[in-house]
Every structure is written in C-alpha cells, then in structure tokens.
C-alpha cells in the first residue's frame, strides 16, 4: 500500500466519544487526504492537506477535524463520534498536482463502528 499505514485498522467505539485515526506515510509526499467510503456513495473527501499545518475541508467535513504537524502524519479526529460516522476511512497521498500527475495512493483503510 505504497508506504502508507493506517491505524487502527478496526475500531469500535461508543456514541459521544472522541476518536482519532492516524495515517502515516514513508513516501514524503506533500498531499494527504482523508476519505470515507459508504455503500452507494463511493469515496467522499473529508479533509485534505497540502503541506505541514496546511489543511482544508472536503465535501463531508462536518464533525471531523484534522491535523498535520509533520509531513509523514495526518490525523483525523472525530470530536464526538455519532452512528452516522460508522464507515470505512481511507487515507491517500499524492506527490504532484501537475497536469499529468494526480495519482493517489491509498492506505488499507480503517473500519470504524460507532455504537
């Protein structure tokens, strides 16, 4: 999975608890992304980062925050988990955004269940 490690791989938590998912890369890629994948919705972008401490919202950012203090780590936090946030979360990285390069490399995913 292109030098991307997501942790944990599986997590079960209770409604109202905070949850942090971690994405760690060894590729030194500038861009990092968090997606959620739900049946019938494909991959939806939550937040992304274009550099250390530089982040921006995606299309489904409500209820999520992110931080990137180092090039290699991108954290996704659910401040107060809700059942609607039960999903599979994928981290992705990309190196360049030039016209011919937007290959995104994905991690193996984190399956989160909020009870």
């Amino acid at each position, binding site marked *: 999975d292109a030098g991307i490690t997501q942790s944990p791989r599986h997590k079960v938590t209770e409604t109202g608890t905070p949850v942090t998912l971690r994405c760690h890369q060894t590729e030194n890629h500038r*861009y990092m992304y968090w997606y959620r994948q739900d049946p019938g919705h494909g991959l939806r972008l939550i937040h992304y980062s274009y550099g250390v401490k530089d982040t*921006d919202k995606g299309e489904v950012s409500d209820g999520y925050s992110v931080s990137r203090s180092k090039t290699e780590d991108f954290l996704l936090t659910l401040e107060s988990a809700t059942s609607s946030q039960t999903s599979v979360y*994928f981290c*992705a990285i990309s190196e360049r955004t030039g*016209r*011919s390069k937007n290959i*995104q*490399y*994905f991690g193996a*995913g984190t399956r989160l269940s909020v009870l």
Partner: protein
Amino acid sequence: QQQVKQSPQSLIVQKGGISIINCAYENTAFDYFPWYQQFPGKGPALLIAIRPDVSEKKEGRFTISFNKSAKQFSLHIMDSQPGDSATYFCAARNPHNTNAGKSTFGDGTTLTVKP
C-alpha cells in the same frame, strides 16, 4: 451536485466476456480521468488513467474510451477473468481546485466475473 456519475452500480459478466463501466461528468475543467480498482478489504489502487486530449488508452486487457464532446468516458475490460472481480471507481480531477488536485469519484461499480 454529483459531478461524476458512474453506471452501472453492479455488473455480472461471464468469464471471457467484456465488462463495460461508464462515467459521465459535467465540469469541463476536469483534466485527468483515472480509474481505480479496489479488492475487498483493500484500498483503491490506480488501474489506468487518461487525459482528455486522447480518445483511447489501452493497457493490456483494460481500455479507457474517452468522448470529450459527450463528456463521457468508459472502462472496457476484455476477456474478463474471475480475478477482475472487484469494485471499480472512475474519478476526475479539477486542476483549478486550489492547493491540491482533488479528484471527484464516481460511486463505484461492483464487478463479478463468473467462471
């Protein structure tokens, strides 16, 4: 507004047959169209990609056909094999998104190739 519409949602093909997955987009600013393949329990991985100045791209049994005037592109899998059974996502990149070449994904097609 869904910017990339993918069909069908699921597809069943006999071994040796041709699998065809279609995507349509609205935003003429999109400049890069990758297809990703995802096996169960894994993250998506780039399969093949095309730029809009090319009408067709072939890599082995996989071909992308691109119709710029119709704003449609499709993935053809020739001689489909059981090992091709996976979920396929089309995507489109908008180079004008600030700070990152964000891609918009279709909802995915689950392909089953029967032996």
